């Protein structure tokens, strides 16, 4: 079925940038919606705890909120194994080199950012504990303009 032979130019130190792996996150794609961006890694315990909550967010606010997660595992396999165990109902962007994390100034994990409809940062949240879901829901409701 395959005769094309990729030639291996082994051990070359020069790199060619045509296949750069830099991850991109374009918030403009979600214009009109709130965006919840969450940075995580497979080996981070609190991230594991935050996944069911983010799946709930998708269910509860599906039309008004986009949940986007950025995986920071260096090895894609680790992220895949994690997602096999705890499936995500939201999109996952892979940022193995940490370019996006640097851009966002990620301080720890998980680290989440809430943007309003116009793409303005409303709040950032470090870590994930059992009392966080309530706090984050309130923030989302406030940003949506739903009065409490």
């Amino acid at each position, binding site marked *: 079925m395959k*005769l094309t032979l*990729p030639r291996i130019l*082994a051990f070359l130190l020069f790199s060619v940038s045509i*296949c750069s792996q830099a991850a991109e996150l374009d918030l403009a794609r979600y214009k009109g919606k709130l965006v919840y961006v969450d940075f995580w890694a497979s080996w981070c315990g609190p991230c594991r705890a935050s996944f069911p909550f983010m799946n709930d967010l998708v269910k509860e606010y599906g039309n008004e909120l986009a949940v986007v997660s950025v995986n920071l595992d260096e090895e894609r396999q680790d992220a895949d194994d994690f997602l096999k165990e705890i499936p995500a109902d939201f999109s996952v962007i892979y940022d193995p080199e940490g370019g996006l994390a640097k851009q966002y100034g990620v301080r720890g994990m998980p680290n989440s950012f809430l943007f309003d409809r116009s793409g303005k940062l409303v709040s950032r949240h470090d870590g994930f504990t059992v009392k966080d879901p309530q706090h984050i829901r309130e923030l989302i409701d406030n940003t949506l303009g739903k009065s409490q």
Partner: protein
Amino acid sequence: MSAPTREIEFKKNSNGWVAQFRAMASPCELLLDSDDESLIQELGNIVAAEAWRIETKFSRYRDDNIVYQINNSQGKAVSVDEETAGLLDFAENAYQLSDGLFDLSSGVLRKLWRFDGSANIPTYEAATALCDNIGWHKVRWQRPLLTLQAGMEIDFGGIGKEYAVDRAATLLKQKTDCAALINFGGDLLATSPPRNAPHWLVGVEQVGGGQSAMIQLKRGGLATSGDANRYLIKDNIRYPHVLNPKTGWPIMNAPRSVTVAAPSCVEAGLIATFAMLAGADADSFLAEQDVLHWIQH
């Protein structure tokens, strides 16, 4: 087909050792990031032995293996070993994931379609007639028993080479932590990046009007599906060699070549194959999969 010569050639280059041999009708090689000559000898033999073992066991050109036994079972159940069962499970999964487009039993179409660049297009009738002998849904597969209808055949050609790469890599990793790249006729896998470079560089040859690419591979599998030289042309219509097992007819508008990177070589190979089977939708299919890929149209 004459028996291939089973010899391994060892070459030293400035960065390490290369072991080269032929298996599965392809040039095969093992690149090792080490100066240790005894290590490359040991590993080269292990890798080649595994390639030859899988070739012997799953080649459809032999009459002394499990594939021959299955293809000549005349409707009787054949009990298969663990390894074959694993491959059959995998193929069944692939059949379901591809909605029936990836089919282990589609090999018989080769009798009809000879992609030699000629204008030798078979008739619709002949293709449709052959489809009676194709279809995994007609196969009874219940570990460890496989029952094929008489006239049907299976062919591991679509995954055998990729599987051999992954198997060889597993054996190799038990012996060394040195970075190695296993390349069986263009299906390859890197165990880890070389010591002196962030990644291996793999060149993908230009086909048709496509562009050649230089791929940076840290670790994992890389496989290519498609080929510039295997097609038929009649009345200015190009018939690529990717066949739809449901119609017996080529999948038109498929890309010329698809290269995919994935954690294992079998995964890379299957995603590349699926992309070809998606035909004109190859680009969007690959975009959905979130894998690194290179398409040439």
